[in-house]
């Protein structure tokens, strides 16, 4: 019998239903694995007692034949999701010991469907980062290492803890959020599957906001099927979030294994960057071949405004963040650093409570919204955003069903290796992913192979709005060809 932690979400679900295993056993196995893997720093809070309680409830429901779609499935939750009675900090000092009295819509739907909470995962502070190095709780160490090396690598970010927890088999799935690539980039770095659904597919209510017009929740899982199962529970309309789409949620799992014959797949030429590693180019080519052999039709497409996406993103996202983070002022909750008057209290609290990257983005955001700069920066960036969206729409109108691109411009890098001197070096990680957020489209990252040093590489599939199903069908093809990627346990 395989270790319980090695099961996929779908396998565990089926074995639980068959009463072959119990939810309590499954939670205990993961609890033990988490304990052994503390060196990874994937979790910032473990909730073993709650997990066992929830698992017992699940076992009782399974016994009564009332199992929900995720009954007894142990999951990890990014620390950006408010969890009732469970500390939620966005991995920021400013939310030290903040315990919400409310549950985010997405997680409440997971619990409604029977899932079990294992703990809260590490992330870049307020989801600002691409390596999980900006967390107040310290960096996450990737379970992956280069062949024959001991260098500590990043799992990507901002949802680095969730990605590492899934890759290291410390949960059967985890929630993430993606504002510019924070699900897809860490998924690619850790050989896991991650999907950022269409903007408006999942409710943002109860998720600590970074950039409201870009933030979207999605799952990390071991397989495409698992992602489909988990997204179905996470998605859906919510009257508490007016940007959340009032559309029914399809049975995504049914799309896994469905034929992709006749689908037109766009290959955007602008994603072929100068100086891009040959291995990335190769894996992209490989992905094209796989889809072609599966019956899809490949077409060259152009997304001419791609090169403006990253600069525009780094105006829009900080602008919204500067305003969204204004509520962390030391007045009502979280950290308060005293001062002689209210202004000094604000200054002390916010300079002590926010880390360097958050402070940088708040400053950038404040600047681009200032009188006299608004038109030149924010307004212009919004216009660029419209053009990026139109680029995609034009392709879809020409019959393209989805696009295939690399997920990241490189494999995972070492901790402390990037962005120390120049933050833009770090921002470039998001070059393939931000366009999707800017256009509000769904994007799936799926593992496709390894580089010469044995590190996983991922491909990105970009879909039409609210057509996650096509992405799951295509992702399953890549997964079938490429296989699954699991790191060797060294921790």
């Amino acid at each position, binding site marked *: 019998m395989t270790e319980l932690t090695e099961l996929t979400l779908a396998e565990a679900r089926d074995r639980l239903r068959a009463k072959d295993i119990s939810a309590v056993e499954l939670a205990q196995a993961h609890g033990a694995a988490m304990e052994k893997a503390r060196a990874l720093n994937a979790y910032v809070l473990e909730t073993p007692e709650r997990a066992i309680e929830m698992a017992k409830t699940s076992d009782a429901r399974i016994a009564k034949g009332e199992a929900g779609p995720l009954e007894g499935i142990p999951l990890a939750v990014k620390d950006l*999701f*408010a969890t009732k009675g469970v500390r*939620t900090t*966005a991995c920021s000092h400013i*939310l030290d010991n*903040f315990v*919400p*009295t*409310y549950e*985010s819509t997405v997680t409440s739907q997971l619990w409604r469907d029977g899932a079990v909470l294992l703990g809260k995962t590490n992330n870049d502070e307020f989801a600002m980062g691409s390596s999980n190095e900006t967390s107040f709780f310290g960096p996450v160490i990737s379970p992956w290492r280069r062949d024959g090396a001991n260098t500590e690598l990043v799992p990507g970010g901002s949802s680095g803890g969730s990605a590492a927890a899934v890759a290291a088999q410390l949960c059967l799935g985890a929630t993430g959020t993606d504002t510019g690539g924070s699900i897809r980039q860490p998924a690619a770095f850790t050989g896991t599957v991650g999907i950022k659904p269409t903007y408006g597919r999942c409710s*943002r*209510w*109860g*998720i*600590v*906001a970074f*950039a*409201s*017009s870009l933030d979207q929740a999605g799952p990390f899982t071991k397989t495409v099927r698992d992602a489909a199962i988990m997204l179905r529970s996470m998605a859906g309309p919510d*009257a*508490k*979030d*007016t*940007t959340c789409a009032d559309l029914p949620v399809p049975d995504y799992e049914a799309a896994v294994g469905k034929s992709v014959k006749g689908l037109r797949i766009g290959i955007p030429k602008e994603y072929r960057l100068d100086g891009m590693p040959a291995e990335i180019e190769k894996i992209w080519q490989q992905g094209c071949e796989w889809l072609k052999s599966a019956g899809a039709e490949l077409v060259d497409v152009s997304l001419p405004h791609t090169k403006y996406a990253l600069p525009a993103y780094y105006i829009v996202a900080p*602008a*919204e963040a*500067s*305003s969204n*983070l*204004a*509520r962390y*002022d030391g*007045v*009502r*909750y979280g950290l308060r650093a005293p001062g002689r008057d*209210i*202004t000094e209290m*604000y200054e002390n609290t916010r300079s002590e409570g926010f880390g360097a990257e958050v402070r940088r983005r708040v400053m950038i955001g*404040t600047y681009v*919204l*200032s*009188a006299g700069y*608004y038109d030149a920066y*924010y307004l212009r960036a919004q216009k660029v955003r419209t053009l990026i969206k139109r680029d995609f729409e034009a392709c879809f109108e020409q019959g393209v069903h989805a696009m295939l691109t690399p997920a990241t411009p490189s494999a995972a890098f070492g901790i402390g290796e990037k962005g120390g001197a120049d933050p833009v070096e770090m921002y470039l990680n998001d070059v393939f992913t931000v366009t999707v957020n800017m256009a509000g489209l769904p994007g799936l990252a799926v593992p496709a192979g390894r580089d010469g040093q044995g590190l996983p590489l991922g491909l990105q599939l970009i879909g039409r709005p609210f057509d996650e199903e096509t992405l799951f069908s295509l992702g399953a093809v890549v997964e079938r060809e490429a296989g699954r990627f699991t790191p060797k346990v060294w921790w």
Partner: protein
Amino acid sequence: MNEQTRPSKLIQGATGGWQVVIGMEVHAQVASQSKLFSGASTEFGAAPNSHVSLVDAAMPGMLPVINEECVRQAVRTGLGLNARINLRSVFDRKNYFYPDLPQGYQISQYKQPVVGEGVVTVDLPDGEVVDIGIERLHLEQDAGKSVHDRHPTLSYVDLNRSGVALMEIVSKPDLRSSDEAMAFVAKLRSILRYLGTCDGDMEKGSLRADVNVSVRRPGDELGTRCEIKNMNSIRFIGQAIEYEARRQIEIIEDGGAIDQETRLFDPGKGETRSMRSKEEAHDYRYFPDPDLLPLELTQSAVDELKAALPELPDDKKVRFVRDLALSSYDAGQLVAERDTALYFEAVAKGRDVKLAANWVINELGGRLNKEGRDIAVSPVTADQLGGLIDLISDKTISGKIAKDLFEILWTEGGDPRALVEARGMRQVTDLGAIEAVVDDVIAKNPDKVADAKTNPKAIGWFVGQVMKSSGGKASPQVVNDILKSKLGL
């Protein structure tokens, strides 16, 4: 805009006449059960922080959801101001830090308000009528309340008001005197109360105004303005404008220049003083709120609201003059307050309209005014006053007795007709009884009789004597007729 210069409105300075130019931003609290973006109650006077939702307290991850009733109220107000309704409007964030602003930004409408240009017709005390342009109306959140005087070093914050819906109604700079400004606010308040979109209670802060004042020589470009913040009394608005206009004129006439600044009015001293200069003004970093979709309305929904609007004061006045043949002045008095108009209409229904108007304006209005009471809580109800008028009309009581009856109704209450019966106040129309009194008075006063024959006006004295002897209950008309015949006049 009203660009004609009205010479009578000029303020005389040392070097000639100055025109004062006034524009207003009126903040009217929307009459609604819950807040603009949360389900928390808007009830006034509750225990501190008892009407605060997670959204109002800006907890992490909370999102605003528009209260459609507040939008309807804003649209109805726009329609009442004869204004254009924008079928698409956008909510923006106005960013600044303050302890009673939990989000660190106020959700407001900056570039695309829900209501565009409109007009309010204002009647001035001297009978002049001016049209004041409305620039826009937008919806925004109110802030909470900071309390600074409860603790030596700390401030308290009450978030009950945080997130309550306000309508900011911005006038064009069309006002030319403090009288116009006061009449404008009074008219706006009246319209809001007719519509039921704001209770107009200035003491509770439901209606507050920021007043922009500048002065110029007639025909010149607009002068530099100062904004007087947060005025919550019509009388103080008048005083503040008078003071501020003279202050600015003096500075300019002394060779100085006006600094654009925000000022506060001190009612104790009757002065305005500087609060912050233009340089200290915040940079609010407005941008569209990404948590909210643009507000889209359909023309049919707007039309539906329009069809359901109540009759507003201007229309009501026209109708009173046209259909009830009231004077323009009386009609104006009756429609100024919705409650007065409703009261009058209840009294006048099926009765002598002029008599009803007279009683509502003079007797009741005078008494309410004297005692500082509101017609909505008048001790004499419309039914009672109507009953009183019925008694006059069917000649059961005289006008004089009616005043006594009114006094009883005011202090003791009761049914007018029953009171008249019980207290023997019925007017005496029995000719025999009156004749006897007349004969008696004539017999006792031969000198007056002789006097009356040469001076017919002296009959008044006899009328008075007869009325007195009858305890005021004799019908004055009957007394007059009998006297005339007995005296041979």
